């Protein structure tokens, strides 16, 4: 049996009396597109913070390709291939789109303790950055200052940054948040193209998108995974209907 690409073993997190992550265990085989859904306040973002190393877990462990990465910091996990995006757009607004992505290449390629030479003109970094930008459909916007991109483009840029880091496991924290229908369609098509090329854990509110993209879906309610399975199975799960889908519908 191959090791899962990403495995969560009994993760817990509480803020005072409030339990946000409650004994979460999950295993993603290599190449799986897995989505986590759940109502607001279910603890989805906290969970992704714990997986990526932004927030320490109270107990439990995170395993990447069979190796325990629980003790590693966010940048260290990135170097191991665990890369994330943020729910609230997180880019370098004063840098060009190209430089945003080139920095991710730079983090992976060679030392950044170089004090001479113009980083902006390093073809080795820029070529790979352009490649990632083209992949997400921003090839023509490379020279634009990132802060001036539209909201949807910024979300595309975030994915390009993540791709340039060459992730084995990609964590996407509500990539569709705040996007209009057209922007969503672009991003969903993009995620469709990424499917199978790497292991993806998607946290998303948009049900339609989740059921269209994910091979497996887990439902998080009050920090606990109450169901996990194929989209069809999860949709028909009675617990899920009452706990989550029912609430949304009614």
């Amino acid at each position, binding site marked *: 049996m191959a090791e899962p690409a990403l495995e969560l073993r009994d993760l817990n997190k509480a803020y005072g009396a409030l339990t946000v992550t409650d004994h979460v265990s999950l295993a993603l085989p290599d190449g799986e597109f897995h989505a986590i859904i759940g109502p607001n306040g279910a603890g989805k973002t906290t969970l992704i913070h714990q997986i990526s190393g932004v927030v320490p877990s109270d107990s439990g462990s995170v395993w990447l390709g069979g190796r325990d990465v629980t003790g590693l910091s966010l940048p260290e996990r990135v170097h191991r291939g665990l890369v994330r995006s943020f729910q609230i757009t*997180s880019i370098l607004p004063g840098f060009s789109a190209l430089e945003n992505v080139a920095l991710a290449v730079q983090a992976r390629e060679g030392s950044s303790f170089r004090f001479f030479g113009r*980083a902006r003109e390093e073809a080795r970094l820029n070529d790979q950055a352009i490649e990632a930008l083209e992949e997400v459909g921003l090839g023509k916007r490379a020279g634009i200052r990132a802060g001036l991109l539209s909201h949807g483009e910024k979300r595309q840029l975030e994915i390009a940054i993540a791709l340039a880091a060459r992730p084995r496991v990609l964590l996407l924290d509500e990539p569709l948040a705040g996007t209009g229908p057209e922007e969503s369609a672009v991003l969903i098509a993009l995620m469709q193209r990424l499917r199978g090329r790497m292991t993806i854990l998607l946290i998303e509110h948009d049900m339609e998108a989740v059921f269209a993209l994910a091979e497996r879906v887990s439902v998080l309610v009050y920090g606990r995974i109450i169901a996990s399975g194929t989209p069809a199975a999860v949709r028909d799960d009675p617990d899920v209907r009452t706990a989550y889908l029912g609430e949304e519908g009614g």
Partner: protein
Amino acid sequence: MTMPPENGPGFLKREAVPVLLFALLALVPFAAVLGAESYLLSLVTRVMIFAIAALSLDLILGYGALVSFGHAAFLGLGGYAVGILSAHGQTDALVQLPVALAVSALFALITGALSLRTKGVYFIMITLAFGQMAFFLAVSLAAYGGDDGMTLPGRSRLFGMELIKNDRAFYYAVLLALLGAYGLCRSIVVSRFGRVIRGARENPQRMAAIGFPLFRYQLVGYVIAGTLCGLAGFLLANQAEFVSPAYMTWQRSGELIVMVVLGGLGTLHGAIIGAAAFLLLEEWLSGFTEHWKMIFGPFLVLVVLFARGGLMGAIRRIGGGGHG
């Protein structure tokens, strides 16, 4: 928005400010012959020394958003390295300068490693506290003049020769140091390393998620800035032929911040212009009244309010250039 190539016909236009600035500085000694030579030389030498200190601060403050409120400590460390070695008969710059730089680097490494664990206002407070520690250490050095400071036997020698004894020779030595410091900083800010520092100013969370452990980059930046400021301290002691705890008062640290902000954060030549504007205004205004700060204060407020980007921002707007 586009990235112009570094060389080409646009070079002089784009680099007009630094080119003019350094040409002007190189010509000052010739103008000085016309009258009041020693006064003018010593004033502009002082400007250039503080410009080095301000440059070094701009590297971390302007490009890294690290508001160090204890930067004057490095002026003192560099100065005291000269003073204390001289007091023990070691007057050669070949010894004094490396010691001044090494002491500054070490102090930056230790205080930076602790300070950089904090953020925002706590970083300001802790760098201030370290600056005050250095200040009070100097006050307590009774053997080296304590509160009163100490007079040096003379300027540093080079291979035993009194190469910078002459004010004009010293002036050019300082100009060379400033040019070197400026060139080094210019190189750093566009390098891979500088890009990480600038990225951390924009969005530290994003930089961490890209895979940069920022602490170590910021620490190295802090050490570079501290070492460079130690060079300014070495030069300042040589100019005044005197060192005292007054080099490292917290007011002095504040003045360095003012110079950088006045000139324009994150522009490097702005730091030079800011240092010049600060010291020349101080000199000029204090000729009218001893309460010159009453005029200087409101002037600063006006610059901050109305000339966003400091004097460099104003120059850019007058020059008609777009956003650089």
